[in-house]
């Protein structure tokens, strides 16, 4: 597969996952804000911090307002990560690898892009209740995952796409956990009050983990929520589970069942093993925030290593005899 195409498919999937995550975050936060006391800033700022877009937000806008945050994360062309820009990127990427995806994928990508474009023209963020839009984006993205699943051969392209999706997903789960956990922690002892329950439930819901968490642990506790989101072996959005599957795809691409032939495999394998053998109490003892911060940095290194190994034109040409 062409290196440029593999690179493009990787990013196409990252952007798609990003768009879905942003839509879900916004949806959950909007719901939450309806039940919370009227401190707008406390409700909406953490969301922008979570996505890592806070610096940019501050540079563009003076005040924190619900509609401004929704605009910024949903539709702002100045925010490279907004849903609009993410889906625009998905589409541009899909366009440039059109022969490597199916007609069904392409049509759904187009549909999603035009959906956001139209809602942008209608200034949806100014409407009283934009949740219908978030739902449509989420469902549109999920439909696309399904179309990928059922129409694309499990070739290298599919695996590179999968790796992109899983790395993005692991990153977003770690960020949600990091920000929300530390906001809620001062009141940790009081989990159980209705207000706290709503907030902790919101954290889980923003990564679609609420139902499966309940099934696994039942009670909401400050130890078990991080454990579930980080170390659960079977929940599809836990950091560990994401890396297990990303590693499998990487091994499928290189054809080496275990160990490593490339730097990308080595780095991903190490990071996965670190989670696989981690003990949640040790993580707490050494600091959850530091742990998550470090995880995000290393995940970034993995992404760079994948680029250097498979996508970088210079490297490939130099290694050719």
């Amino acid at each position, binding site marked *: *597969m*062409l*290196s*440029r195409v*593999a690179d493009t498919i990787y990013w196409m999937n990252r952007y798609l996952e990003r768009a879905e995550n942003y839509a879900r975050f916004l949806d959950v936060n909007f719901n939450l804000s309806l039940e919370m006391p009227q401190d707008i800033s406390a409700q909406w700022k953490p969301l922008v911090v979570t996505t890592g877009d806070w610096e940019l937000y501050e540079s563009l806008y003076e005040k924190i307002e619900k509609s401004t945050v929704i605009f910024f994360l949903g539709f702002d062309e100045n925010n490279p990560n907004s849903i609009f820009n993410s889906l625009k990127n998905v589409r*541009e990427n899909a*366009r*440039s*690898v*059109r*022969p490597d995806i199916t*007609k069904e994928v*392409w*049509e759904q990508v*187009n*549909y999603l892009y*035009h959906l956001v474009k139209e809602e942008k023209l209608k200034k949806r963020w100014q409407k009283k209740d934009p949740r219908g839009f978030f739902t449509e984006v989420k469902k549109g993205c999920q439909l696309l995952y399904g179309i990928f699943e059922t129409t694309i051969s499990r070739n*290298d392209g599919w695996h*590179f796409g999968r790796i992109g999706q899983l790395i993005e997903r692991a990153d977003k789960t770690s960020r949600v956990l990091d920000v929300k956990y530390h906001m809620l922690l001062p009141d940790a002892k009081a989990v159980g009050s209705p207000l706290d329950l709503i907030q902790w439930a919101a954290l889980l819901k923003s990564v679609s983990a609420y139902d499966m968490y309940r099934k696994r642990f039942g009670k909401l506790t400050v130890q078990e929520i991080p454990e579930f989101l980080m170390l659960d072996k079977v929940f599809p959005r836990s950091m560990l589970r994401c890396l297990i599957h990303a590693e499998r795809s990487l091994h499928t*691409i290189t054809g080496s069942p275990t160990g490593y032939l490339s730097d990308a495999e080595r780095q991903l394998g190490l990071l996965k093993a670190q989670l696989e053998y981690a003990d949640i109490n040790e993580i707490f003892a050494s600091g959850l925030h530091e742990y998550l911060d470090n995880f995000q940095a290393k995940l970034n290194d993995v992404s760079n290593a994948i680029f250097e190994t*498979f*996508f970088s*034109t210079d490297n*490939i*040409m130099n*290694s*050719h005899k």
Partner: protein
Amino acid sequence: MSKVDLSSYNTKGFFDEMMGSEGQIRPHYALLQERLKKMGWKKLNFLQQSTDRAQLSLGMTFNVYSDNQGIERILHLDIIPRIINGKDWDYIERGLKQRITALNLFLDDLYNDQKVLKDKIIPKELILSSSTYLKQCMGLKPPENVWSHITGTDIIRGGDGSFYVLEDNLRCPSGVSYMLENREILKRTFPELFEKLNVRPVLDYTHSLRDTLESLTNITPATIAVLTPGIYNSAYFEHAYLAQQMGAELVEGRDLVVKDDFVFMITTKGLQRVDVIYRRVDDDFIDPLAFRKDSMLGTPGLFNAYKKGNVILVNAPGTGVADDKAVYAYIPRIIKYYLGEDIILPNVETYICDEEKDLQYVLENIDQLVVKQTDASGGYGMLIGPKSTKEQQAEFIKKIKSSPRNYIAQPTINLSRVPTLSGEEIEGRHVDLRPYVLYGKEIKIIPGALTRVALEKGSLVVNSSQGGGSKDTWVLNDI
């Protein structure tokens, strides 16, 4: 709901493809006309809107050059088809075969023995002064001696109902994806007509294209790539479409590398050799070492690999010299010279401004003529005399006088018209016809074409960049 009504359909002064001058429906349009009359305007407009939506969802969009913002447009597809009967088509096909055969012999001669110049069939200076004549190609012998493997010839029909060739596109003709996708869409619009009419299929174009490309090499299986300038090119949709339909790789210049005069793709598993490249990048840009040094679209060393026969380029570089608008005027003589035959599909009468007598005529009759810049395309650099202002004419007179070699002129031809939907009305609009010809070991012409239509009332310019749309083109088997 009011029904579609054709009683006020007006053909005055033009050749209409559907209706004769006495108002009689031509036989090959009879079924379509009946179908339309049974339909309400509302239904017809609904079908038109579904078509627009289908094009959007298929991503059949292009960017217009002048829009820096890259505003995406769809090429409007008018749902009323253009129909050609079998007899007319067979004639067109014979004409095209003759023309393409001669043009390829001409190209091969120009870049080798130049007999045509020595025998003074065409002025030497005219060829040697052409910016599209590539001296780097001298002495080359592409496989099968074919230079232009993929052609899209522009044909028009005049007021007298005769067909003429207006332009040869021997470089990177585009539009074939519209021929194919328009058909897919129209099959959904008028399924019952397809059942009753005997429309010749176009579906096998991409198979034939692949066969043509494979026939040029002995390597099996051959690795075939479509070379595109990238997603911002106005024909990108087509490049991606063809690559996908053929099962070829879609590559950009930066995806390729030349080592030891062989061409490779850069893949996740290392370098992989490429055997045939259907390149949709213009000659000037394919290789910065051989042609334009500032090209970012090409691959350094590509031309050398081609010269050594290590990769096949389709079309071959250098074909532009034969579709130069000034060379066009000589094509009847070129056909006679190489084939000993009279031209089957005639040219439009053409005045060559570089020839004294013609120049005088052009300057005196500029308000009656269509003036074209010889190295421009896409409807740019053109003056339509009868529709121009005095100032525009004066401007062109100045341009022609300063570089006569760069201009030709032709009488203004009233292109034939085809019924076209315009709100609650069906009116005649001017059209041309671009069939596609494949030439590997043999010539293959797909029974279909892109019909371009000037959507604006009265307009004669059908180019997509100038407000033109398209129509599906049905070639019938006469029963």
